[in-house]
């Protein structure tokens, strides 16, 4: 049996059982402050421009607009998928959320408390509540530390004794599916990629966080291992009552794990909404092109022409107005003149997209619910293998 089929069956099982309810946060979580309706994390106008230095005296001669005015919320208990092409600022966003790099502008509010503000959450407190799993499983573990010590490092830094740290590490190794007596004292080079990534997950969970950022956490793994780790992550989410931000360029994986999806293009949010809405009724031309570029398992849906050609423009000098207009088949003058607004987010069923065609007052000739001549999205490969009707 091919590994991909194994993953598909698991996905089908998951769908048959029904998605886990979004409001799974039990009222008894002592760490919960604002109740289940208060977002876990609210991001407002986040900005990061990396300076390009050069010339005489290392002057700032330009900047890469890696993340440019990004706002969204992460709800309690949900999995928010973030997709986009490489270089669109996904990883920078993850590092900004983790405060690994300083932000230029914008605010982060974790469960109602501003981060690094007066009367707000300190950085240390935030890091106890929010952890990250890195993409490169091999470089994210210290080659000279037994994995047990790598996992115990976080708790030790927060004042746990050596014995406590060891206990936490062994418990977590078991939770991520590794026998602690067999793997605890091993060094990273003695583990496979999947095992290393499990250790990374255990390390991220060592501080008992409420939220996990998974930055391409399974992208480097084999498909069969990827499915195993994804299912492990699902189990851990329920077990530890976690909220996930799942960053990936793999649209199928994002569809499988996410409750809501955020689409990024060139450092900006172009579309955000529930996963069914995004994958079935994408509003933004970029999202549609992205979804069309997936390879289908159905030979009738073969993609002969690439829906997206060329590369994203240079983020040093992004196009005026809508940043996608250079590659957009529906671009008109209004797209160059004005930046489309994404609209107001109301609740978890809100489906927003930043496109002039969705705004009847924008002056775009194609403004309306769906532009003419656009076929609806092809069915996703998951659905075809599982032989399910429309959800």
């Amino acid at each position: 049996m091919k590994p991909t089929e194994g993953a598909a069956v698991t996905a089908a099982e998951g769908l048959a059982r029904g998605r886990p309810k979004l409001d799974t946060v039990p009222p008894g979580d002592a760490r919960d402050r604002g109740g289940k309706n208060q977002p876990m994390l609210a991001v407002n106008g986040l900005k990061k421009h990396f300076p390009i230095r050069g010339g005489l005296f290392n002057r700032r001669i330009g900047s890469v607009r890696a993340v440019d005015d990004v706002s969204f919320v992460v709800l309690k208990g949900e999995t928010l998928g973030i997709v986009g092409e490489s270089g669109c600022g996904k990883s920078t966003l993850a590092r900004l959320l983790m405060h690994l790099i300083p932000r230029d502008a914008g605010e982060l509010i974790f469960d109602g408390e501003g981060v690094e503000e007066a009367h707000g959450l300190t950085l240390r407190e935030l890091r106890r509540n929010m952890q990250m799993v890195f993409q490169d499983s091999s470089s994210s573990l210290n080659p000279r530390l037994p994995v047990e010590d790598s996992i115990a490092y976080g708790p030790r830094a927060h004042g746990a004794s050596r014995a406590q740290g060891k206990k936490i590490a062994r418990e977590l190794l078991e939770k991520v599916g590794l026998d602690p007596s067999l793997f605890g004292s091993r060094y990273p080079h003695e583990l496979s990629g999947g095992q290393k990534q499990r250790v990374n997950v255990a390390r991220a969970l060592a501080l008992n966080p409420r939220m996990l950022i998974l930055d391409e956490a399974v992208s480097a793994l084999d498909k069969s291992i990827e499915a195993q780790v994804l299912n492990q992550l699902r189990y851990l989410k329920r077990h530890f009552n976690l909220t996930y931000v799942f960053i990936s360029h793999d649209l199928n994986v994002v569809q499988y794990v996410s409750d809501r999806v955020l689409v990024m293009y060139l450092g900006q949010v172009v579309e955000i909404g529930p996963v069914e809405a995004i994958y079935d009724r994408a509003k933004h031309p970029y999202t549609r092109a992205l979804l069309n570029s997936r390879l289908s398992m159905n030979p009738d849906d073969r993609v002969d022409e690439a829906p997206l050609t060329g590369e994203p423009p240079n983020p040093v000098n992004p196009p005026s107005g809508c940043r996608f207009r250079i590659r957009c088949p529906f671009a008109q003058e209004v797209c160059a003149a004005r930046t489309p607004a994404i609209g107001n987010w109301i609740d978890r069923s809100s489906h927003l997209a930043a496109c002039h065609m969705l705004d009847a007052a924008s002056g775009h000739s194609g403004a309306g619910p769906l532009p003419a001549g656009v076929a609806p999205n092809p069915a996703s490969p998951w659905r075809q293998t599982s032989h399910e009707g429309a959800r």
Partner: protein
Amino acid sequence: MEIAASANDAPALRVRGYWRTVGYRLRYDYVTLFFALVILLIALSAIFAPLLAPFDPLKTSMAYRLKPVGFRSFLLGTDELGRDMLSRLVYGGRMSLLMGLTPVVLATIIGGTLGVVAGFVGGSINMLIMRAIDIFYAFPSVLLAVAISGTMGGGMSNGLIALTLVFIPPLCRIAETAATQVRGLDFVEAARASGASTRSIILTHVLGNVLAPVFIYASSLISVAILLAAGLSFLGLGVEPPTPDWGLMLSTLRQAIYVQPYVCALPGLAIFITSLSFNLVSDGLRQAMDVRI
């Protein structure tokens, strides 16, 4: 049978730690082991010099000047003042090893610290430290050592300071390169994300990964230090007579090279064997400690 046994062993898979692996590799590296033994013997003879030396290394005798190897009870002959060569070589090993090890150890501590700080902090501090180090790089190391001990005057301690200063730049550079590499790796980011202090990150995550390349390079510098110390003594800038020192002995015996060539070559041979041993052992260590990051 073999296969069955190993299959049964599988659950209790033996997991070796890093240092155990290094030890395992060294155990079958006979060249390294042999030269490590040579170093051990030289070190032991230097430590127990008073017990091993048949004569007082400073006692001169006009009657027995420049006697050949094996002359009467002088096992390795005598020098130009009739002092016993064997005694002087054994005592001289003390000085040479001291001059070889001390500057390297001091320079490793100072240069390593500077390099780790420069590499881990980066930015303008890195700029400041590394450009200062570059100034030292402008001069050849021998010339620099001679210039420093020349301006400070002769003597053993000034020689040690000069050699230490000469070795700081290369060690600093090695540490800086390694620290810069480690700083960019995800596990340091992960450690920062866990809220640990910079000091704790450096001690736990950076130092362990920087130490190996620095240590390997430092061990190769020991032989250079012995040679440079001998050179300084040869020029009259290091150890002062009548203290026995291999470099100094080589220098004073060179007038007698046509009279007793073999005896005159002995201090040189001692320097050669010692530095060769250190070089080969450091080579073996480099291979044994090689870890794929």
